[in-house]
């Protein structure tokens, strides 16, 4: 598959995977490009025994987590401050205007720790199988199931609060 075709095939999956983690479009755009540049540079070293989309998702996931942790380090911000910054961006989003429960759901998701939020997004929004998630995240299926279950409970509790 030519690289151009690969970009066209996976660009939306990569972009939305990143966007749900970093929220801001410009950041998502930069990171999506970085992901594909990394794929292009390392395409020769790609091991054929792994699935291409698993490998691409792994790169995108690492980019997201690195971006968020470097953002916290760079500005000496504690976790809550970065979360508050992401919440402000969600609140400013015109798509969520007037939809209280969706806004509250997004805020509840943002309160989760980064890795748990990642697990939740992949299962809830992207509807991935636990086996696929396990390959991408290098975590056991059992641990992923537990993480998702806890995330759902936390979100439901938060949304129920007035």
């Amino acid at each position, binding site marked *: 598959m030519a*690289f151009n075709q690969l970009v066209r095939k996976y660009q939306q999956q990569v972009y*939305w995977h990143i966007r749900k983690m970093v929220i801001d479009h410009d950041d998502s755009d930069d990171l999506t490009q970085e992901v594909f540049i990394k794929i292009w540079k390392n395409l020769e070293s790609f091991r054929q025994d792994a699935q291409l989309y698993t490998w691409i998702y792994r790169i995108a996931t690492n980019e997201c987590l690195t971006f968020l942790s470097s953002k916290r380090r760079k500005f000496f911000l504690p976790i809550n401050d970065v979360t508050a910054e992401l919440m402000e961006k*969600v609140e400013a989003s015109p*798509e969520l205007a007037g939809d209280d429960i969706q806004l509250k759901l997004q805020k509840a998701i943002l309160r989760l720790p980064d890795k748990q939020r990642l697990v939740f997004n992949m299962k809830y929004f992207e509807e991935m199988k636990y086996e696929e998630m396990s390959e991408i995240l290098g975590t056991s299926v059992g641990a992923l199931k537990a993480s998702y279950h806890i995330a759902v409970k936390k979100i439901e509790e938060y949304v129920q609060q007035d």
Partner: protein
Amino acid sequence: MTKMNKDFKLSDLPKRNMYQVPEAYFNRLPTRIMARTAAAETLQPAWQQSLWRPLRLTLAPLVLLLVFVGVFYLNISDRPTPAPADFASLAEVEIMDYLTSNDTQLETADFAELNSLADQELTADFLNVSQKAAEDELVYYRINDEDY
């Protein structure tokens, strides 16, 4: 607007994508990415860039050291070397005049040095004559009998 209730279940909420992208974003994105890959191909390879910085830091003091060493050796080679004294061509009178006019004095160190050489067979080295021949000469010319 969806109403919140006390028995909220996530599964009851319809899934929807909350975010939007600029118009035709996904049509333009591949072109932008391909443009970046094309630009990266013309740039210096990353390993060369990463190698250049430590190499530069290593070479700078080395070059400086070489410059100092070069200047030092050039100074030494430019310095005029004194011509070796040709005592053979000097008249004995001139040597005697030099020694008497320059207030040449023997010091204790000179005696100490001479004393340390006493056991050595110096006659042969300096006079090119064996000790036996020298003693024969002293006896023959009765030099030992004379008072100095």
